[in-house]
């Protein structure tokens, strides 16, 4: 048995089984968690009838979606219609292949807590694959042959493409600091450097930009103009029912899980915790503690994302695009410039913390000149007075 496990492919297959089943179950239960959290925030209880505390609700939902009649409307482009949800699930599951979910080990007989180890371009791979996810929205909207869906998918494509840029650029700073693009190496570097080595201290602005851009990528509120009910019925998923609709949302929740993993791994030290899970902790069961620490951080981010859903009102489409192009991209560019300067001139990387805060303050001061002066209305009044005379 153990010689079977020495074969890397067998180990990889085992890792795939474990990771994918965990993700799919987690998606189902995240939907329940989202419903419960949303309910508690709104002074009501979530689903609590099916099983204790509604814990069997995802099962009931899954069974319902499975046995629902698979309606394919007459007026759709069948191939593209069926391809949309497939791409959604495929790309987001594939992106998870390079995300470590525990202490990664490359020795042949040990469980590698990553599906595809030793990929030096981990981050680039993830962004490349998740960029393909926009195809699912575009195809879903276009193939539905429905004006609302087409509008929704158009907006979604513009939004996702615009937010790809700050998403990638915010990570350039992290990649430069750690001299690697591989997620495992970044995690290991932070773990070895200890609590003060977490990238959040060196790149707070990049973390903020990444978080905002990642939420926009996965179409979560406040960026969910493309699937909000008040405007577009269902947006790109209006014409989908049953399991095809479930696949869209499986893809979305997997994307949320992936970005929470990325946030915790890239900026918050992954499985590192000051006393109990250091880089050289090797006590029996250390791997379980490390996995638990990582999962706690990931759940913290997921809960934060779900909290933000009901806290911030939805962005209007022009505000959304303005945020990406006029705020996040310049900030991310300036951040990369800062990192390059610090690295080139040999300063201590810890200088990045006050420099980042200064960058944020400076950008804020520049950008808020108009609102602070009561700018637009003031100029309108001055213009009106001039015109009146």
């Amino acid at each position, binding site marked *: 048995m153990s010689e079977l496990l020495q074969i890397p492919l067998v180990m990889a297959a085992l890792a795939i089984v474990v990771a994918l089943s965990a993700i799919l179950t987690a998606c189902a239960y995240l939907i329940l968690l989202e419903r419960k959290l949303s309910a508690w925030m709104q*002074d*009501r209880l979530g689903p609590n009838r099916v099983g204790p505390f509604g814990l069997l609700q995802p099962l009931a939902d899954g069974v319902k979606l499975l046995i629902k009649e698979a309606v394919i409307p007459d007026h759709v482009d069948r191939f593209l219609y069926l391809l949309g949800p497939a791409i959604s699930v495929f790309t987001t599951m594939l992106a998870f292949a390079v995300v470590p979910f525990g202490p990664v080990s490359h020795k042949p007989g040990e469980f590698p807590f990553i599906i595809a180890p030793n990929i030096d371009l981990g981050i680039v791979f993830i962004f490349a694959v998740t960029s393909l996810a926009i195809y699912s929205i575009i195809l879903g909207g276009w193939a539905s042959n429905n004006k609302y869906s087409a509008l929704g998918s158009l907006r979604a494509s513009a939004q996702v493409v615009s937010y790809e840029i700050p998403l990638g650029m915010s990570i350039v700073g992290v990649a430069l600091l750690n001299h690697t693009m591989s997620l495992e190496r970044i995690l290991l570097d932070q773990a070895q450097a200890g609590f003060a080595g977490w990238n959040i201290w060196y790149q707070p602005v990049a973390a903020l930009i990444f978080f905002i851009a990642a939420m926009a990528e996965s179409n979560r509120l406040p960026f969910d103009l493309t699937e909000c009910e008040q405007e577009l019925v269902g947006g790109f998923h209006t014409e989908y029912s049953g399991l095809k609709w479930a696949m869209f949302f499986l893809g979305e929740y997997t994307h949320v899980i992936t970005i929470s993993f990325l946030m915790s791994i890239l900026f918050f030290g992954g499985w590192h915790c000051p006393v109990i899970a250091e880089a050289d902790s090797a006590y029996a069961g250390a791997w379980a503690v490390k996995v638990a620490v990582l999962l706690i951080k990931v759940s913290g981010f997921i809960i934060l994302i779900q*909290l933000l859903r*009901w806290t911030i009102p939805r962005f209007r489409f022009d505000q959304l695009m303005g945020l990406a192009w006029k705020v996040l991209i310049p900030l991310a560019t300036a951040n990369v410039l800062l990192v390059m300067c610090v690295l080139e001139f040999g300063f201590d990387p810890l200088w990045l913390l006050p420099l980042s805060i200064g960058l944020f303050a400076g950008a*804020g001061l520049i950008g808020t000149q108009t609102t602070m*002066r*009561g700018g637009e209305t003031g100029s309108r009044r001055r213009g009106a007075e001039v015109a*009146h005379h």
Partner: protein
Amino acid sequence: MAMPIADKDVVWVEEPPMNFWESTFLPAIVQGLKITSSHWTDFKTVTEQYPEQKPVLPLNYRGVHRLNRDEKGRVKCVACMMCATACPAHCISIEATEAPKDDPLWADRDKYPASFVLDELKCIYCGMCEEACPCDAIELTHIYDLTGATREEMLFDKEKLLSVFDQTKDSGRDPVRTSRGRLSGCSEFTALPPLAPATAVKPDDRSAKAPSPGVISQ
């Protein structure tokens, strides 16, 4: 003649100026997060767990009808057809008949309904029949969860309506009501029980002399 608006009539409304921190909108987001997370932690939910917790209905809730009995156990209804006439959905069908002449129980009654059929499915539960009845015979109770398997089952005849009465007269939520302030000839009350006024009534007001002061009459 189109006059331009005078300058003194124009009010310029400007956005209040935000300071630097407010312009980043981050304090507003943090405040919002505090509000939403405080809702999580105070565990005050407004959900009613039906069917373990039944809703508390207002006192004059209009539910399933009943036909009242008087203190001798006879049906109060005199088959005057006022409820059938008043009903906007035409769901009441009454057949009047003479009271049995040789029965001492019915000595002071002329008419009573031989058949009184109320279609609970057609009814819109408006309460017009209850308002129209001069004898406080038909009333709407608080029963809201009425179900039936067939349409015929939901055609309540006299026996069924009287049985609703027997079930609900002691429930406390459906006292036998009258048209407050107006006692008709076939009502069994000679005086009304004291009722708290709906509005404050000053003693020198003209409405203080009404039988039930302060009641808003229909």
